[in-house]
């Protein structure tokens, strides 16, 4: 087990008591699991803000935040961890400052860089889970490939307009990865980001909260090798809120990333042989 010898102080008991008495949380054992878990969140935007709030509130011990964007006023309707006084500053630092105030028991590390083939392994190494809160296909493939290579489970979500999607990738190295679902990237002109497609703040926010819930379930051990069935959740906010769970394919033996003869490895990623920009097509994404 990855539970270390840490225990909870009285102050921590008081802080987390209301969740520890919920049976599904696993009580003290579950809280110690949270405390010893290391999570890296890629993107402190519309998905990352609510995920981070609830994971830090719950007492996940170690959080990394990767984002090189700065806060803009047009982000604030959905990125509610930031505020007007932080416009122009780094999102990862703005988030860290708020999260430290929310829960000083959490150790938060910031990575004010764009995730690239060169830095992703170094950043992800040592984390137990990756939350993919990014906004371009190229970065989604990169997050997936590096996580699979390092054996990390990914909680991946996305949204635009009033809709969102969520899935768990590479579950304990047994579940399907992003490339199992999407071996071929979409044509670049078919992809719209939150900036250009627009987004209703609480709709993307709800999907971010769902990510936190799925992450807690992973840490609490609700999902096991035995009971885990690949799925994709599809949320729609308008006209009536609905949440559907699609049953998805399992790991594909032919997958270039997680299959039986992977071509996508630490070596081919770091050498640049796997070219994400070329793979997903050239296109200017406005930052979200």
């Amino acid at each position: 087990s990855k539970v270390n010898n840490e225990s909870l102080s009285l102050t921590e008991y008081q802080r987390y008591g209301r969740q520890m008495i919920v049976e599904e949380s696993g009580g003290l054992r579950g809280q110690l699991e949270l405390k010893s878990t290391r999570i890296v969140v890629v993107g402190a935007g519309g998905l990352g803000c609510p995920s981070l709030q609830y994971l830090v509130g719950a007492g996940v011990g170690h959080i990394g935040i990767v984002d090189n964007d700065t806060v803009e006023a047009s982000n604030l309707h959905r990125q509610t961890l930031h505020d007007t006084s932080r416009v122009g500053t780094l999102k990862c630092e703005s988030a860290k400052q708020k999260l430290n105030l929310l829960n000083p028991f959490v150790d938060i590390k910031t990575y004010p860089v764009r995730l690239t083939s060169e830095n992703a392994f170094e950043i992800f190494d040592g984390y137990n889970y990756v939350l993919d809160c990014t906004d371009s296909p190229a970065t989604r493939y990169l997050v997936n490939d590096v996580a699979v290579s390092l054996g990390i489970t990914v909680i991946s979500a996305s949204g635009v307009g009033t809709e969102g999607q969520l899935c768990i990738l590479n579950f304990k190295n047994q579940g399907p990865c992003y490339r199992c679902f999407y071996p071929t990237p979409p044509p670049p002109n078919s992809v719209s980001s939150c900036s250009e497609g627009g987004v209703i703040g609480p709709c993307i926010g709800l999907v971010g909260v769902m990510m936190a819930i799925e992450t807690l379930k992973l840490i609490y051990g609700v999902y096991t090798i035995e009971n885990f069935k690949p799925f994709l959740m599809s949320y729609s906010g308008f006209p009536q809120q609905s949440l559907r769970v699609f049953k998805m394919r399992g790991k594909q033996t032919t997958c270039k990333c997680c299959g039986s003869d992977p071509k996508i490895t630490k070596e081919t990623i770091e050498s640049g042989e796997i070219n994400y920009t070329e793979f997903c097509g050239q296109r200017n994404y406005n930052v979200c």
Partner: protein
Amino acid sequence: MVKVKVEFLGGLDVIVGKERIHKVEVTRDDGNAVNVGDLIDYIVAKMIKEKNDVEVFIDNGSIRPGILTLINDTDWELEGEKEYELDDGDVVSFTSTLHGG
């Protein structure tokens, strides 16, 4: 002849008159069972109004990468893809994969 429900989610409804849910009846001239491949042909021939919207849906003879196809809420890869024979009441959903965050 088979009566099925077809859904266009994740913004894909723009190619079919902005309606997300359609009830359609599909027939085959040769009398064989109607499969998902036939339904896709029907969508292209009858439901997509603007011809340059076809490439939003079809690429290289199959569903465009980035679109998930579900048969009764299950990934079509588990159900035989185009070969799946439709029954009355089946629901076939197409959803664009979202990328925003």
